[in-house]
């Protein structure tokens, strides 16, 4: 026995020694791989510096406050989207669910005189049901998440328009509490809306849950390798279902933030939010192949998009160039992700 085992052991040591002598590029790759939010964080810091230098109005408290408000809706939506992308899924219906639930909150209160808090609760329940519908189609009917949510995207857009009958409920028509997340308070010179605060709380909560609870680990494990997770005794379908329902509730919560942001519930608001949330998640370093990424990254991703749009506006560039810049950012982010993944393959 002893004769056969010494050889592999010594060559193992040799292999590990070899690993110590890595090139700088490999070391960078390894570090970026370990902390997927790091590369977007660097991009965010650099872009803030560059835009501050380009325009003195960029780094003013008022402007920074504006950026956070502009980011709040897409940022909050990206929390649920991150959960789903971590399971190697994708959710095209997130924005549609958000708008639908915001209409449910505003219109039930407006039509029936239901108290605001109750209407919000109803909206959250509708969000959970919408998420459950996605989840059931993914886990029971076993359709790919892309197809499922492409279908439900259209369904919820249609339901919203049918339900709203083309009517926007604005301002004074909103029941008490519905626009609460649009109210502002000041931290130093920076004015912050309660909606931004709620978004940050959502991030804090899910950063904790993903890192420190068994459920969080199971989300990663399922996205990493669903079969391995199943063999390890994880109820994969149950985890997926819980992720879709949770995401649905988070979208509804974002619907509430949306009402506060535009001070109205309109069937036509948040049209671009579907893809913008995916953009934020991808730029934030979460892998579309699942199992790798953080919610913190998605917050940074949403901020990067906000900073670019705002900074380019201040630089006097047309809105089309902003969209162009976001497109380039997405492709760069995914390229970096691929490069990092290749490091470990």
């Amino acid at each position, binding site marked *: 026995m002893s004769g056969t085992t010494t050889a592999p052991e010594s060559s193992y040591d040799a292999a590990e020694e070899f690993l110590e002598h890595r090139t700088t590029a490999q070391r960078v790759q390894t570090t970026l791989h370990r902390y997927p939010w790091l590369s977007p964080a660097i991009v965010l810091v650099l872009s803030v510096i560059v835009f501050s230098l380009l325009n003195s109005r960029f780094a003013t408290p008022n402007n920074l406050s504006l950026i956070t408000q502009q980011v709040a809706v897409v940022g909050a939506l990206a929390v649920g989207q991150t959960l789903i992308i971590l399971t190697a899924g994708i959710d095209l219906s997130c924005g549609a669910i958000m708008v639908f639930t915001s209409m449910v909150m505003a219109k039930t209160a407006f039509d029936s005189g239901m108290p605001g808090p109750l209407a919000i609760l109803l909206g959250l329940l509708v969000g959970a049901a919408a998420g459950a519908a996605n989840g059931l189609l993914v886990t029971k009917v076993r359709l790919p998440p892309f197809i499922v949510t492409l279908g439900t995207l259209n369904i919820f857009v249609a339901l919203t328009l049918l339900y709203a009958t083309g009517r926007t409920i604005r301002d004074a028509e909103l029941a008490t509490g519905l626009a609460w997340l649009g109210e502002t308070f000041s931290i130093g010179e920076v004015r912050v809306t309660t909606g931004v605060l709620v978004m940050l709380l959502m991030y804090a909560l899910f950063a904790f849950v993903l890192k*420190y609870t068994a459920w969080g680990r199971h989300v990663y494990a399922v996205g990493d*390798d669903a079969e391995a997770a199943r063999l390890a005794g994880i109820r994969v379908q149950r985890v997926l279902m819980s992720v879709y329902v949770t995401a649905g509730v988070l979208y509804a919560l974002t619907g509430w933030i949306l009402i506060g942001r535009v001070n109205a519930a309109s069937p036509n608001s948040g049209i671009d939010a579907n893809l913008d949330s995916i953009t934020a998640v991808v730029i934030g370093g979460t892998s579309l192949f699942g199992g790798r990424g953080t919610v913190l990254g998605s917050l940074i991703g949403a901020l990067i998009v906000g900073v670019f749009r705002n900074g380019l506006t201040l630089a006097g560039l047309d809105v089309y160039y902003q969209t162009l810049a976001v497109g380039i950012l997405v492709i760069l982010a995914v390229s970096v992700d691929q490069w990092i993944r290749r490091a470990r393959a």
Partner: protein
Amino acid sequence: MTATNQESTATPTGQPVMQAVGIVKTYGHVVALDAVDLELYPGEVLAVIGDNGAGKSTLIKCLSGAEAPSQGQILLDGKPVHFRTPLDARRHGIETVYQTLAVAPSLDIAGNLFLGREERRAGPLGSVLRMLDGTGMRKHAKEQMSSLGIGTLQNMGQAVESLSGGQRQAVAVARAAAFSSKVIILDEPTAALGVKESGQVLKLIQSIRERGMPVILISHNMPQVFEVADRIHIQRLGKRAAVVSPKTISMSDAVAVMTGALKVAPEQEVVTAKSGPAERT
């Protein structure tokens, strides 16, 4: 071969830890298993070999709960059990390691070891906030790894994707060893590995046997089987062709039995405790 092997040839004594009696498994008209018996005795490594289509995978699926047998019975310590899912088998103390390196690549070693069985923190942090005990799990993982002699893996916070195939399989085997209380089933654990890495896994199997944990090893690889097995269950055309000892049969004869070219004489069989001492001749 060595002293350990001579001792362990005498292991088929007493009551089997795990026993399969007359297992039949059919898929439509195909009979994958035709009344197969299998006995696993305390502290032994039982190898299951067979050609493709001999039914060894199906047999293992029935034992590990991945498939339910159409007929027949599985006994654990003499008591009948019914497994409907792999989780059922797990609850009875049976852990299975698969050839497909069933680990989650982006989780760390400790995370994989405790995957699906995470430990929570003591006090309200664990019960209310449901916080996991990361430090504790890494500590237990380290203890487990070093007790199995896997010294090359030091950092339990290392992501499994940064490990070699052999090290990944070592993590999977360590997981099985940490949580099984009765039987460890290894389904072609070296099939995806290179020669050196296979050697490491074989060493692991031996250290598991030294702990007294019985192992069922499914393998294609004859030299490996002859290196670690105490008894060899040869599966052929959905039936058990023979149970032999690696010491009384040559590798080529074992292959001949597997392919049907040779029948084993009754005195060479080591099915029961009685035949234990006789086979040394």
